[in-house]
């Protein structure tokens, strides 16, 4: 047993590291360092930069414009991106609908949609959840009824992340209600957000941000050519997508970067007073979280080693999402606790370009720490809640 990467992988790591060190745009760096939220164009510019380097579609096969990287290379790439505190790419196009299209779509769909995803010309959003169908996604009610050359879409999707930016949405809708299993009547449709009959209503989250939406469809005509694969097979395609969602879901790299920063800050005086290191209870909690994270890192590496050796990922992969979100939420809490009273001002307005710094409350990003903590409660809720993950482990791993 050993844990070092091969010389080739190390060379690759140095290449990725050098790229992020020298090519990552300084405007974005500044925004991130000052806690200014990234906007649509920031993401698009960043993704175009990655694409120019040939790295944007890290997980795609070469024939569709992907990298053809080994699992280890993908791991290294994601780790370096996180260590550099570069943002994740927006998942909906490149990590979600893209793989569904190149796996199940027609040649025409591949030609029509994949290039725009690769070049970040089109922003996608994910229309799965509904007000009545969250954990129990198969109970979804949005209907797509065939009428001539189009499906007529009616229903409501909710929690749709960044739908306000989206050009297209991929939707799971019911095309047949007369089926033995609820999953069987569901189809996978690609829908242009400009189609008449679509309304997007913002949902404000507890941190005051506009990140999710309700998307309402009223008699929206979707050309039959926008059905992916076969009618009624959408559930199977959607599940494939969830497997793609599962790569790098532990967020180890990001958690490592955040804990490292927090620990570095611990020896500095806080607002001219004692350093955090003088608070032993805090330091013990920090250390305990570091231990959890180290364990998680090795759990992830064990999965990686299995996959790299051509084996199916073992039970350890199922626990990555649960533990990964627990650890990231523990880091949110520690970071907020580190800020003391300065975690409490609700001053999102000071994290914008050109804010008068003499009016700044707290140092740097302290007032954002609680907002991040509040916002990231979502991590254990979305993408299959941690309770649902545990049900899956109980059933499929433990055979209960």
């Amino acid at each position: 047993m050993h844990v070092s990467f091969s010389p080739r992988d190390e060379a690759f790591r140095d290449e990725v590291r050098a790229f992020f060190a020298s090519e990552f745009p300084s405007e974005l760096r500044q925004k991130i360092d000052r806690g200014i939220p990234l906007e649509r164009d920031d993401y698009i510019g960043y993704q175009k930069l990655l694409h120019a380097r040939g790295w944007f579609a890290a997980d795609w096969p070469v024939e569709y414009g992907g990298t053809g990287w080994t699992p280890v290379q993908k791991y290294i790439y994601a780790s370096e991106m996180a260590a550099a505190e570069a943002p994740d790419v927006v998942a909906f196009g490149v990590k979600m609908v893209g793989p569904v299209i190149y796996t199940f779509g027609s040649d025409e769909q591949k030609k029509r949609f994949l290039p725009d995803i690769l070049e970040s010309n089109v922003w996608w959003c994910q229309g799965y959840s509904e007000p009545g169908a969250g954990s129990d996604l198969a109970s979804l009610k949005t209907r797509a009824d065939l009428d001539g050359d189009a499906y007529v879409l009616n229903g409501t999707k909710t929690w749709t992340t960044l739908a306000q930016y989206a050009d297209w949405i991929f939707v799971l809708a019911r095309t047949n209600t007369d089926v033995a299993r609820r999953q069987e009547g569901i189809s996978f449709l690609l829908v242009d957000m400009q189609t008449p009959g679509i309304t997007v209503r913002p949902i404000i989250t507890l941190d005051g941000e506009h990140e999710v939406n309700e998307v309402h469809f009223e008699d929206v005509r979707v050309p039959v050519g926008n059905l992916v694969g076969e009618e009624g097979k959408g559930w199977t395609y959607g599940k494939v997508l969830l497997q793609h969602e599962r790569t790098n879901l532990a967020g180890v790299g990001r958690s490592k970067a955040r804990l490292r920063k927090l620990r570095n800050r611990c020896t500095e005086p806080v607002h001219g007073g004692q350093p955090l290191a003088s608070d032993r209870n805090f330091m013990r909690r920090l250390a305990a979280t570091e231990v959890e994270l180290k364990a998680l890192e090795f759990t992830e590496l064990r999965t990686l080693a299995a996959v790299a050796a051509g084996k199916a990922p073992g039970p350890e992969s199922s626990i990555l999402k649960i533990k990964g979100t627990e650890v990231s939420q523990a880091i949110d809490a520690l970071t907020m606790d580190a800020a003391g009273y300065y975690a409490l001002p609700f001053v999102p307005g000071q994290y914008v370009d050109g804010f008068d710094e003499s009016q700044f409350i707290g140092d740097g990003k302290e007032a954002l720490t609680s907002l991040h903590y509040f916002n990231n409660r979502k991590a254990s809720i979305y993408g299959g809640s941690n309770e649902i993950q545990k049900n899956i482990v109980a059933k499929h791993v433990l055979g209960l």
Partner: protein
Amino acid sequence: MDFSLNDMQAMLGESIDRFIANEYDFETRQAHAASERGFSPAVWQTFAELGWTVVPFAEADGGFDGTAVDLMVVMERLGRGLVVEPYLPNLVLAGGVLKRTATDAQRARWLQPLIGGERHAALAFAEPHARYGIGDIRTVARADGDGWRISGDKTYVLNARNAHDIVVPARVGDPSGDVGLFVVERAATGLEILDYPTVDGLQAADLRLRDVAVGADARLGAGDDALSVLETVVDEAILAVCAEAVGILQVLVDKTVDYSKNRVQFGVPIGSFQALQHRMVDMLTGLEQTRSLLWWATMTYAEGGDDAKRAVSAVKYQVGTTGRRIAEEAVQLHGGMGVTWELDVAHYFKRLIAIGRVFGDADWHLDKLAG
């Protein structure tokens, strides 16, 4: 042994409950929080008219001669209603100092109108460098002619945005001097108030005092042990916010159980899943354990028991740990709804998190308990 409320306390509690049920639903609360001053002056007047603002004060001051238990009754109810009106900063904090230290003339000028609801006040109990240390004060008041000149920085001064009068603790003479307490009126030159809303819908401010001149009569309780007054007031305030927290936790447990009975997934209410039932049992257990510590601490404090300080730290630690866990669970079990601005649960959660750190977080109080 008797853990029941007396008639007066029961009546007080019921009248606040009634007010909240009839006139203070969540939408109203949100509107008050988002209004110009961050609370409703009309509601504050109602509090004064109904006699709730006099609870923590002596009969001689026109008060109710309330004990720590009476204050607990009030604060738990205000917690349940998620009330934003500044009961704590006005009456428990600033009022707590004034009632212990003010001369007759000072009472007439600052305390009476405060109790009457005509003036607002604040206590600047925190400094940026001090984390949660109450006595860790660098602000200095230097004698200047008859009066004083005060310089220093304060943070998280609750209600400073609306306060006419701010009680400012400062070292007298030089940075190693004794602690003194001074009233700075908001118009004072050299006082800069950087106010902000807080994540839990309240109002606070950072203060920059630069050679702020106040008269001799601005000093409260000269000759008293001002630091010990300050510590006592903060202990009372800790009990008050812990009572508020118990009210909040009660609501979070109730709302979560209720939601789990009504939210259907997989064809059944999610409350029928044993995995979630056990989680809600843990929430309830945590709530009752917290309430027990609150009662112990409040009674011990009211009776002046030897371990009053330990009791105060114990319940504060519990709110910071168990309370936080209960609130996080409430959000988790509400699924996506739990993280929306629209739902009251998220706002109870945020207030609970803020309470978890005001006057010291769990780490801070565990350290005191560890000795």
